[in-house]
């Protein structure tokens, strides 16, 4: 994941002709179950010289589901899940559809309405 972030930031920096990238805001979905410190460390290890001074701000976005069958919204509570299920959802959040059902109507037809994926929400730099 750290590679993906660095490669995306470098790409944007090139496109925007940044001499220096000041800071990057990274949003990480809770379902990704990434440890912020570990991710920060990985980025520090892997970044090229060009990003040596960049500040990486990492924010975790809470996960929630919205049922497409009945409209009910509910938050993700990983405490109820078994370890191997957590592990699976950690890798591909969409497999939640195999293990979680809407608490109101029982449907597996829900949307992961937040808390999935990694997004670069902002890049500030100097030209």
């Amino acid at each position, binding site marked *: *994941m750290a*590679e*993906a*972030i660095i*490669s*995306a*930031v470098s*790409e*944007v920096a090139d496109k925007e002709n940044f001499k220096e990238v000041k800071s990057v805001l990274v949003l990480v979905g809770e379902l990704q179950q990434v440890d912020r410190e570990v991710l920060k460390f990985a980025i520090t290890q892997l970044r090229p010289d060009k990003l040596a001074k960049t500040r990486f701000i990492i924010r975790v976005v809470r996960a929630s589901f919205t049922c497409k069958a009945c409209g009910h919204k509910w938050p993700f509570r990983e405490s109820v899940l078994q370890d191997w299920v957590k592990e*699976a959802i950690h*890798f*591909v*959040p*969409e*497999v939640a*559809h*195999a*293990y979680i059902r809407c608490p109101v109507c029982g449907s*597996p*037809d829900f949307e*992961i309405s937040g808390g*999935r*994926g*990694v*997004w*670069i*929400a902002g890049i500030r730099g100097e030209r």
Partner: protein
Amino acid sequence: MFDPRISIIDDRLSTIDRVIAVVSGKGGVGKSVIASTLALLLAKEGFKVGLLDVDFTSPTTHVVLNASGLQPIEDKGIVPPEIHGIKYMSLVFYLGNTISPLRGTELTNILLEILAYTCWGRLDILIIDMPPGISDLMLDMLKYVKRAGYLIVTTPSKMSFETVRKLIMLLKGLGAQIIGVVENMLMSGSTEYIRREVEALRERYLGGIHYDTSLEESLGNVEELLKTGFALELKSILQNIIM
């Protein structure tokens, strides 16, 4: 907002010499047995080969390979487990025997996730087993894996070719690389119908594979599978094309 997965896909696939997607548009024509058996044949010939099952709502290659109980390892990404000499990746590792109904936007997300985080290492060939239908995953392959070559499977039936013709027209229109068409499940003699239709579209008819009554029983037993007439015919068809 910018999705970092997309910019890493080419990187991840850069250690792979050739990507081949087994497609049809039509279901039940033998895509999954052909994709799995092709991977086995290639591994036996000494190729470094990977197999990725992209039929996320109804994966089946694990049945052919008897690959239950496998688990990938997480190490700066996902390292696919090896079975019968194949680096193998399927959503089944995470689903077990449960069902995961998935909408198109979710299928796209899963594909991106797997392409961005799977570490295939050095491969000669990656085989991708595609789902039926001409929907999200087909469009995503065209969008995110531009290098893929397409191995098209049909049966001798006009019902089947009705859909296959449309897929060929789509791929041609987009300038995608079409390897050719395999006609699977011939009953007794070939009717020449498919060959004529394929050649009329100026694509390559690769050959026919007969319906093989011993195939079903061999599924899950790789030694037996490779001895079937099905596997022998598949090998002779693809010998000079892929192997």
